[in-house]
């Protein structure tokens, strides 16, 4: 076979592939896409832990750092309730503070949140706040961290590219959010949302979250080896005020067997040793 026929053959193959594609008709429904994307972003494994580092850069280039260790445990197998535990390591004024959340997926039920202030030995109960509020002063919002519930929006598959399902999400209660709609680029292979663009009126893009890196994290599930594709580097940009926040997620472990006890006042006051490291 000479070079020319090889190229011809490849071209044909590609053409054939393109031809065959629509015929496969394996496209998942938009609800399925959203469901899987929600699972990938927040619910992989029965539990998980890792180190989170946030680097916040304002428009003048001034940098602030936030570091915390995080524990997460699912409360069910249907991607609903979860418990979170964050132990702060930096900056100095919040060091050793602990933030604990019992997240309730049901719309009518607010999350339960606690803060522990070690210098006062004070366990503070925090009123559930606006979830569209900055998380620890970064460009990520609470809702970016603990997840925006899929039932909060109407979803519309507006495009399918060779890599992404492009889904437009329109809030059901527009008065509760600052955006008009957002567009998510969901990876076809892994269902990880790779990019989210938030728009205000007149289709003005004002906020952006992008995944910069994913890694396959090995873990055990029921004695078998499994792999969880996980976002390890991402960035949130606020195009209105010119600031951005890079988030690095490291030392990730899944299915470590966290017990429910960890998410109680006992460990809020005195975190387990391996969370402090």
């Amino acid at each position, binding site marked *: 076979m000479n070079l020319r026929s090889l190229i011809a053959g490849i071209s044909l193959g590609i053409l054939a592939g393109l031809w065959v594609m629509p015929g496969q008709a394996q496209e998942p429904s938009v609800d399925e896409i959203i469901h899987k994307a929600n699972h990938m972003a927040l619910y992989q494994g029965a539990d998980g832990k890792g180190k989170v580092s946030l680097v*916040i850069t304002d428009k003048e280039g001034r940098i602030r750092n936030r570091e915390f260790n995080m524990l997460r445990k699912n409360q069910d197998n249907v991607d609903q309730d979860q418990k979170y535990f964050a132990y702060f390591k930096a900056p100095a004024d919040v060091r050793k503070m602990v933030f604990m959340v019992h997240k309730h997926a049901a719309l009518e039920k607010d999350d339960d949140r606690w803060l522990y202030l070690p210098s*006062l030995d004070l366990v503070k109960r925090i*009123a559930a706040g606006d979830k569209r509020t900055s998380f620890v002063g970064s460009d990520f919002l609470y809702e970016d961290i603990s997840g925006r519930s899929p039932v909060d929006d109407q979803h519309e598959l507006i495009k399918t590219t060779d890599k992404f399902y492009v889904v437009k999400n329109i809030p059901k209660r527009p008065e509760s959010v600052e955006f008009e709609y957002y567009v998510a680029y969901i990876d076809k292979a892994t269902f990880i949302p790779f990019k989210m663009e938030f728009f205000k009126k007149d289709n003005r893009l004002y906020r952006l979250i992008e995944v910069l890196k994913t890694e396959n994290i090995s873990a055990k599930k029921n004695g078998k080896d499994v792999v969880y594709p996980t976002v390890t580097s991402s960035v949130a940009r606020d195009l209105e005020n010119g600031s951005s926040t890079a988030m690095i997620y490291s030392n990730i472990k899944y299915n470590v067997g966290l017990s429910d006890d960890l998410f109680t006042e006992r460990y809020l006051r005195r975190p387990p040793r391996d969370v402090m490291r």
Partner: protein
Amino acid sequence: MIMLRILGGRLIPILFIITLLAASQAVAAEKEEASFFDQFSPIEVHGFFEMRAGYRTQNDPHEKDRSVMESRLQVELFTYTDWAEFKYKGDAWLDGIKEGVEYDTREAWVFTRPTSFMDIKIGRQILTWGTGDLVFLNDMFPKDWQSYFIGRDKEYLKAPSDAAKVSFFTEIGNLDLVYTPKFDPDRYITGAYISYWDGRQKNIVGQDHQVVANTPDEWFGDDEFALRIYKNINNYELALYGYHGFWKRPGGETPGGVAIFPRLNVYGASARGQLGHGIGNIEVAYYQSVDDEDGYNPRIHNSEIRYLAGYAQDLAKDFNASLQYYIEHMLDYDAYLDGLSGGRAKDRARHVVTLMLTKLLLNQNLELSLASYFSPSDGDAYLRPIAHYKYTDKTILELGANIFWGEESHTFFGQFENNTNVYAAIRYCF
């Protein structure tokens, strides 16, 4: 005696630091020989340096014009082994009010988790429980209102206890037991930093006339015992409390005018949880003044019941408000009136409303907060506005004020009117 007391107070932290330093030395030194110190993790060192200056906004004939003037260094050391954690935190500062060098060990403790259902923490530690927002009913651990009123960081409102805390965790409920072998009183207003109403002189006094107190100080004799039983049911936090000890501020005086700390037992309960979109809390405490059970002794505080109800909610983005109603209700009031030989009678009940507001701005780097206390029964108030700005991750700037107001000069906040002050601080963390 004074030497002994100083040694007694400082011996434990000194020994503690020596242990920690020895541990760090050992880590740094030869590693071939397995020594006792090898089991310690590398010591974490943190802390801050701070300068804080404040002035009274009016003349106080009994105190200096400056209300706070200090350069403070806080150092924190932490290490752990497989079986325990160790922490030291101490402050040393040049004090422009007392005109000398001061030192305070804030924490020096060992923590261990010997079984799955038990935690133990022994040593000097900060202890807090209860549901109030800067109001304490069942929390009988020492407070430092003096530091709070002159505008030190909120951290200093809590004074340390030299105690052992043992906690048990079970399905039925959890139990905290705190034993303090030697009474730890509040760091109450003595006149050293803040002028106050002296009921005996029927006048405001200050540095020239500091409180003379007879503080119970016998190890294992003048001890305190506190317990809390608590349980979380569907994230409603329920608790019962008990305390056996003394009034934490002078709760009486001898006929000769020496302040004393009469015996006190406290029994109470609290609940806290979601209410609407906010957090509601209620707490009640019965203060049994053991040395004056029937209330006829005018020189010893009567028994009281204290009530608290509060509600906190986010009102807007990064804007939180909490409102509380607090009552101190004197029992045996008639007996109190009978026993009173002239002089001014206190009201049967003291009512206090607190409103706390917190607003975050500039990417949460600027915190504007206001803690306010109003007493409709006493006709007095205390406001504590603060602007707290994180200039960088390590440098913090603060401006604040402590504003006291009262119709009369003998009420709880009214007596401090001449102490109204403004202050500024800069802190560098490491």
